């Protein structure tokens, strides 16, 4: 049915246009002949096409524009008295003989335009007459377009300052203002009346309401005209224009009109006028219909004003002088109160706008920011946590705004209402917000430097730190969770103070919070805290000399105790490997601090973990190598402790599940007895014992491979051991002689020949390279070359 109507409309429009063209043709001919009588006759017939009631506003506008263009030519004709020989005043009377009212009034306005220009009659009288005469058309659409025509043809002839007129200037301006205001009021009434005519099924009503909305600019245009009158100064705007317009807006009781006209007022009048009349403008807001989207209106006002403040710093005193913030804040409160049905999202959005406003206009006023947040808390309190996603989005915007503005979380941490707003977020949004906070810290490289601030911060981001009530673990996306926890881990490194005392407090605070994180979070967060604490230990150790003994409350020892407490829970939450690594790190740090018992304790913990918690053979291999590596670097141990630990390490090495793993761990143990430092341990005999043991294991591995697979395994292990021999040979271990090396080379050569089929190219290449190295050293000469001299090598082709 609607499509049908659309087609009909096209037809009607085409007919209308044809009618206009037809009559315009004769009108032009009459104009060419300076024939006034015919010109009036055909123009009236042409304008009769505008009497239609069948077109929607859009189509009617098209038709109107056709007639409008033709009327411009008529106007030029009217202006030229020589052509038609009738005085303009008489012409004004003459056109009123047209039969139909609508064409008559269009013609009257057209002559009126020429009349106004000629100034043959007082402008005031002509304007008054025109605007009164137009009352005769009460059909909304026709009336609106007619009055819009009146507005259009009169606007450049309105009395204004700077124009020459017989009367006093401001009095002139008043004539113009009263004329436009009257036209505006009449048009708004016509426009609102259109709504009352709309009845019938809701589908039709909706379409009609949409069409009505299309007419809005005809009404709003009057406000634009008012804004263009130069004589409308602040005083006149304040005393006459704004109150009159607002009176019409409030009294029309129409949602569509109220929203649109408020928007217009804000957009068409200049910033400084708004600033100076804030109270009046805002005072109208609570009086509007409860369905009016007042938050958009106010946001636009605040947007405009903050742009104004941003464009020119000199206007800032004006904002303070008129107490713009206080007025806006009060107005928002009143609107929320007045519109009881406003959804919570609307109330929060209003606060976001106000916050944006104050951040832009008064960036130094933290109290304003806190006030806005506080007012939001008030609105949220006593209600269940937000679950409307649009509302939570607004809260995130509210809380993000200060972060974006100040690029500094520390500022936000001083806002007492900040955490109180966060308390009203549901768990998911709380996490989102916590991530926003962390990202802000990262982006700006903000250092949080006191334990108190850290406390507040962790309170804010607690959604990431602990399981809050009601979270179901299964629902958490693994990837998201990891990302969140990695962020927390990174955050911990941003908590720093060069003062050891304060830093220690920070560490304790962080510990308190993260230790309640549960098994899934600890593996992410603990390492960060450990390294942060180790950094403090190194710092303390570095300045050891300057600090006098017992007075110092923060000692490495104390921190190590703390570290022990932090790592321990890890082993019980199925991250024993991580715990082991951290113990070893701590042991090394204790070593650097010359704390033998502490280091020993950490090693003990590591071994206990190895024995009791690490069962996987691959994990064991990794763990034992880590232990060997760390132990090798230790120099704090006395002989007894050292022997105990190295004994354990070699013992476990030889007990690994796979022979090759055993072999490699055992030859690695050789380094425990030979530390290539000036005063490192150098026990050549025990080195040799390790290497020989490794050789035996390699042999056994070879034999087992023979039995199991019918061929011996690769010689890689032997070549690896050979390289160890060469290392110690060069380092001057007296137990390793050129003869030992020669023997091993031959052994490998034999092995390879006996089972060439199974030789892997890789181990072949490895062996060849090793031989080449020896060859190279021999040729290079020098002390090392001489040492190598007795060894004979034959590099395979």
């Amino acid at each position: 049915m609607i499509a049908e109507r659309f087609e009909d409309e096209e037809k009607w429009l085409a007919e209308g246009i044809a009618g206009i063209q037809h009559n315009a043709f004769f009108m032009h001919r009459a104009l060419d002949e300076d024939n006034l009588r015919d010109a009036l006759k055909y123009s009236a017939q042409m304008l009769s096409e505008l009497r239609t009631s069948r077109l929607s506003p859009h189509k009617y506008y098209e038709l109107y524009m056709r007639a409008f263009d033709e009327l411009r030519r008529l106007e030029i004709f009217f202006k030229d008295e020589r052509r038609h020989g009738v005085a303009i005043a008489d012409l004004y009377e003459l056109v009123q003989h047209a039969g139909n009212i609508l064409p008559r009034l269009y013609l009257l306005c057209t002559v009126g335009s020429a009349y106004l220009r000629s100034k043959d009659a007082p402008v005031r009288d002509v304007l008054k007459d025109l605007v009164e005469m137009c009352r005769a058309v009460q059909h909304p659409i026709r009336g609106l377009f007619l009055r819009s025509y009146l507005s259009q043809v009169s606007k450049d002839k309105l009395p204004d300052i700077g124009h020459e007129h017989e009367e006093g200037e401001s009095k002139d301006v008043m004539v113009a203002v009263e004329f436009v205001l009257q036209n505006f009021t009449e048009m708004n009434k016509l426009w609102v009346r259109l709504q009352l005519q709309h009845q019938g099924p809701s589908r039709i009503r909706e379409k009609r309401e949409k069409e009505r909305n299309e007419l809005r600019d005809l009404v709003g245009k009057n406000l634009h005209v008012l804004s263009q009158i130069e004589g409308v100064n602040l005083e006149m705007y304040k005393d006459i224009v704004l109150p009159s317009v607002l009176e019409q807006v409030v009294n029309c009781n129409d949602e569509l009109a109220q929203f649109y006209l408020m928007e217009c007022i804000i957009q068409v009048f200049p910033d400084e006028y708004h600033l100076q009349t804030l109270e009046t403008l805002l005072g109208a807001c609570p009086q509007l219909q409860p369905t009016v989207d007042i938050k958009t209106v106010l946001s636009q006002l605040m947007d405009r004003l903050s742009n104004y403040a941003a464009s020119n710093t000199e206007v800032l005193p004006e904002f303070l002088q008129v107490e713009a913030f206080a007025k806006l804040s009060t107005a928002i409160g009143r609107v929320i109160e007045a519109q009881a049905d406003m959804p919570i999202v609307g109330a929060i959005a209003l606060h976001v706008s106000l916050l944006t406003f104050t951040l832009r206009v008064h960036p130094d006023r933290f109290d304003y920011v806190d006030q806005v947040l506080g007012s939001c808390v008030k609105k949220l309190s006593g209600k269940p946590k937000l679950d409307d996603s649009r509302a939570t989005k607004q809260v995130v915007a509210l809380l993000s705004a200060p972060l974006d503005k100040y690029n500094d979380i520390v500022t936000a941490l001083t806002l007492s209402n900040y955490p109180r707003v966060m308390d009203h977020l549901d768990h998911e949004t709380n996490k989102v917000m916590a991530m926003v906070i962390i990202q802000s810290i990262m982006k700006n490289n903000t250092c949080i430097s006191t334990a108190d601030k850290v406390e507040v911060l962790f309170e804010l981001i607690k959604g990431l730190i602990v399981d809050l009530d009601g979270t179901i673990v299964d629902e958490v996306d693994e990837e998201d969770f990891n990302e969140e926890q990695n962020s927390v881990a990174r955050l911990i490194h941003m908590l720093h103070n060069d003062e050891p005392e304060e830093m220690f407090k920070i560490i304790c605070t962080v510990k308190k919070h993260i230790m309640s994180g549960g098994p899934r979070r600890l593996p992410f967060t603990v390492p960060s805290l450990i390294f942060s604490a180790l950094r403090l230990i190194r710092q303390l150790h570095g300045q050891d000399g300057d600090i006098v003994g017992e007075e110092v409350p923060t000692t490495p020892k104390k921190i190590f105790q703390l570290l022990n407490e932090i790592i321990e829970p890890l082993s019980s939450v199925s991250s024993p490997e991580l715990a082991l690594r951290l113990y070893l790190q701590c042991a090394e740090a204790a070593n650097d601090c010359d704390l033998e018992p502490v280091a020993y304790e950490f090693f003990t913990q590591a071994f206990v973990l190895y024995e009791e918690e690490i069962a996987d053979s691959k994990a064991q291999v990794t763990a034992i190598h880590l232990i060997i590596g760390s132990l090798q670097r230790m120099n704090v141990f006395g002989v007894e402790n050292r022997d105990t630990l190295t004994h354990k390490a070699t013992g476990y090495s030889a007990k690994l599940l796979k022979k090759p793993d055993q072999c490699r761990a055992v030859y690695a143990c050789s380094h425990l007895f030979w530390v290539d430092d000036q005063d490192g341990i150098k026990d050549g005999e025990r080195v040799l014992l390790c290497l020989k043991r490794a050789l035996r294991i390699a042999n056994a591995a070879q034999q087992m491979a023979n039995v199991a697979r019918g061929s011996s395994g690769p010689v890689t292990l032997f070549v690896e051991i050979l390289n160890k021999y060469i290392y110690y040979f060069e380092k001057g271990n007296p137990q390793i002689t050129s003869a030992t090396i020669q023997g091993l080379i031959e052994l490998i050569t034999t092995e390879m020949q006996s089972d060439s089929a199974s030789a892997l190219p890789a181990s072949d290449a490895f062996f060849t390279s090793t031989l080449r190295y020896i060859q190279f050293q021999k040729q290079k000469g020098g002390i090392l070359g001489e040492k190598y001299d007795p060894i004979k090598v034959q590099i395979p082709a």
Partner: protein
Amino acid sequence: MASRRRMLLKVIILGDSGVGKTSLMNQYVNRKFSNQYKATIGADFLTKEVQFEDRLFTLQIWDTAGQERFQSLGVAFYRGADCCVLVYDVNVMKSFDNLNHWREEFLIQASPSDPENFPFVVLGNKIDVDGGNSRVVSEKKAKAWCASKGNIPYFETSAKEGFNVEDAFQCIAKNALKNEPEEEMYLPDTIEVGGGGRQQRSTGCEC
């Protein structure tokens, strides 16, 4: 007959919100300027008489709303335009980027018979701001764009200081005049000697 029609030249000014369309028109027609931003609602025109090649023309300059929400009735007023002026703010990149959009929008809505040769003029406004230090669109870039769209004449203007405004509108008028009349010539089927005109369709009421 054509000469009479050509007495009126219709010019449409388009461009983003806040680039200074109303200010340019006011500067040209009234020699006035206000620093205050006042949004335009709908479309309306000012006229100015211009002398050109010993003839007097009426320039009908249509100022439009840059904000879409204030253009609720559509753009039927584009019809019959003789020249389209595209304005951007040399200090706002987006307003320059949008020139393309405005040009295309105009060509679609006004659908001139020869879109390739329809006269446009581009104005880069607000060159006075901050002594030119805040400008982001170079003259070169603007000229390149104009060249790529069929050598559109380009002017750098300051509505505030009145710089180049007169020259720009001279060019606009000249180009508008060059534009061939679009209007389909209407010829009635029969010329009624009696002059009774067409039968009026009744609308059922006398208003």
